[in-house]
């Protein structure tokens, strides 16, 4: 891991600078004040000013980020503490491998003056670094008063303040004057002490940072998930051991190594770009070297939560979990098939016996019971298979353009006998010119069967109305809205959310003595409707006042007249456990 900013350290420098400088200066002020009455008053004012300046330095540097900035700010404010003709600084920028020289002239001097300052500073840096530093390739910036080449002043006094952080020379600050003897010990002693104290404080802080880095690295490495983090320039900031071994990259990979290792399975670069710009965490599943991995990508914000500083990507191994799910779903499928065979034998045997069975009332009655109960079991088994398929994402919808109105009419007719038996009337209302819908005929019949059967089951009297009409949004027809309304026992508002879950059968319904059913019908209906791209919901005014179930079916975009379409198979996404 690489922390390139030292903001904490620098806040400390400044805090220290300001505090210590302030203290020393106040003390000096006291001493002087005692020496000389009136002079002391002037001194007081002066020192108060100096303290204020130092405090300002502290405040400003609190927001700064690197050594270079520090040097700039300090030199800018240093000029207020000491008399000078020019205040300058040299910054050694190791990141960009540059040397920068800046000089602010407070009174007109010659260009030579400035050059002399620069030479003296470069010499000082060379000596400290034990490495020669020449004038060439040094960025130069001069500001302040105009230079006058007719002048011949030389640098009569100068003072260099090195800024050293963790044993490394970061920069050099200089004040120079035309006048001699400006920077005697008394003036400058305190500043040396400040510089020394500050750099020691920063070095200690760097140790603490290294420690914390170490602890963080350990925590990240002990994760059982693979983790990587990049900064805003997509440079690798963190990668843990687990991810390195998962991807099979070396010990110190570059971001390209990782992108390459994943290419074909995951476009890592795009995912990271999306995460940074969109600010939404994205999750997806990939198959990688016989493993199934869940990948989370999310951006990391700075402490004030104002801007992103990078992206973190987590890789979670779900191979075993998936295998277990497949095992469960295969087991369920197998059990379903095993159950169907004997049930079929039972039903078929009853069929064969029926002609003989008519002869005796007893036989007829009990054959009837065997028939209907084995039919119920078969339907339950069918429901179980549907639920297993929905939950494993293997529930296929084969949609095609078709006449939904005709399907509704046919289903409603088929329910007339049972409805009549309970003196219930079924009315069908299909809108004129209803457009073709895009749906799976068999599965949609299943949905209608379920809704109609519920309507009949839970009504003791009255009417059932089935209707279908266009839904218009923003001027264009988008869906067909189908509704099945009954005048039955109704549903309490608080029970409605549970209706479409796997355990939807409500106590009230069971009390109404309805034939036992699996309670899975609405759950499956929801899977079918949503798999076709629609929605299903229910409205009821509460117990005793009937209910209406609605679902939508998308409108077919292509006219039936044109070339025969290949029906599209939708596989529903895994349905969340309800």
């Amino acid at each position, binding site marked *: 891991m690489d922390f390139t900013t030292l903001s904490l350290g620098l806040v400390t420098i400044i805090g220290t600078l300001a505090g210590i400088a302030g203290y020393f200066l106040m003390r000096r002020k006291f001493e002087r004040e005692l020496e000389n009455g009136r002079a002391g008053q002037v001194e007081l004012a002066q020192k108060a000013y100096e303290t204020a300046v130092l405090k300002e330095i502290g405040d400003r540097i609190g927001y700064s980020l690197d050594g270079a900035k520090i040097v700039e700010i300090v030199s800018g404010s240093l000029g207020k503490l000491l008399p000078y003709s020019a205040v300058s600084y040299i910054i050694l920028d190791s990141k960009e491998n540059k040397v920068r020289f800046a000089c602010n002239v407070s009174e007109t001097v010659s260009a030579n003056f400035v050059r002399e300052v620069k030479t003296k500073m470069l010499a000082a840096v060379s000596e400290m670094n034990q490495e020669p530093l020449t004038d060439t390739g040094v960025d130069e910036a001069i500001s302040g008063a105009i230079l006058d080449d007719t002048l011949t002043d030389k640098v009569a006094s100068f003072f260099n303040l090195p800024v050293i952080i963790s044993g490394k020379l970061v920069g050099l600050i200089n004040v120079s004057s035309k006048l001699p003897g400006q920077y005697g010990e008394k003036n400058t002693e305190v500043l040396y002490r400040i510089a020394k104290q500050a750099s020691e404080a920063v070095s200690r802080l760097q140790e603490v940072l290294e420690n914390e880095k170490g602890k963080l690295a350990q925590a990240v490495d002990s994760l059982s998930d693979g983790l990587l983090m990049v900064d805003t320039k997509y440079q690798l900031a963190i990668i843990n051991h687990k991810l390195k071994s998962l991807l099979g990259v070396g010990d110190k990979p570059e971001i390209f190594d990782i992108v390459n290792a994943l290419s074909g399975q995951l476009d890592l670069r795009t995912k990271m770009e999306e995460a940074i710009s969109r600010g939404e965490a994205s999750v997806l599943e990939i198959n990688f070297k016989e493993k199934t991995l869940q990948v989370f990508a999310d951006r990391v914000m700075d402490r004030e939560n104002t801007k992103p500083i990078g992206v973190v990507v987590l890789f979670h191994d779900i191979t075993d979990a998936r295998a277990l799910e497949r095992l469960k779903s295969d087991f369920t499928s197998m059990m379903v098939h095993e159950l*169907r*065979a004997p*049930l*079929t*034998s039972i039903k*078929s*045997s009853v*069929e*064969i016996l029926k002609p003989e069975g008519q002869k005796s009332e007893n036989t007829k009655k009990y054959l009837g019971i065997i028939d209907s109960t084995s039919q119920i079991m078969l339907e339950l088994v069918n429901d179980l298979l549907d639920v297993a398929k929905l939950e494993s994402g293997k529930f296929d919808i084969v949609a095609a353009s078709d006449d939904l109105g005709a399907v509704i009419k046919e289903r409603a007719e088929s329910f007339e006998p049972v409805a009549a038996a309970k003196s219930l009337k079924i009315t069908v209302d299909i809108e004129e010119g209803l457009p073709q819908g895009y749906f799976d005929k068999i599965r949609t019949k299943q949905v209608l069967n379920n809704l109609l059967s519920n309507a009949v089951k839970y009504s003791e009297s009255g009417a059932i109305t089935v209707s279908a009409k266009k839904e218009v949004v923003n001027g264009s027809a988008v869906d067909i809205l189908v509704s099945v309304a009954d005048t039955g026992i109704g549903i309490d508002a608080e029970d409605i959310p549970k209706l479409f879950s796997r355990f939807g059968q409500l106590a009230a319904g069971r009390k109404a003595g309805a034939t036992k059913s699996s309670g899975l019908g609405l759950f499956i209906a929801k899977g079918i409707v949503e798999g076709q791209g629609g929605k299903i919901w229910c409205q009821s005014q509460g117990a005793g006042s009937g209910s209406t179930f609605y679902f939508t079916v998308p409108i077919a975009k292509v006219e039936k007249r044109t070339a025969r379409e290949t029906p599209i198979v939708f596989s529903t996404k895994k349905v969340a456990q309800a």
Partner: protein
Amino acid sequence: MANIIIVEDDINLATIYKQKLTEGGHSVTVVSDSEAVKQILAAKPNLVLLDILMPNVSGLDILREVKADPMGSAIPVILLTNVAEDVSIAKGLQYGAYGYLLKSETTPDQVLSRVNMALEETVPAAP
């Protein structure tokens, strides 16, 4: 009045289908999966009801062998299965099966009518 061979390992179902088809006036023989190909090619029935999922031999393999043989290629074969979406059904139809039935959704009466329909549509095997 046709000769029909049923290849089905579930004894109960085999019994039921045999009963129904016999009542419908046909002559029915139930054979095991291991003997199926041999017996079908020897007897040359007018129609075969063939279960797909069986313990010893796969129904699809039996189908392919029968269809590959000149004696057997003309015999209509109706596949029996319990799973609607089984890829085996699609494969079976490709191998030349006449059609398929979902056992759990088809009553014995419906089996009989399906069989009769198939018999009407296909040319009976040469005696």
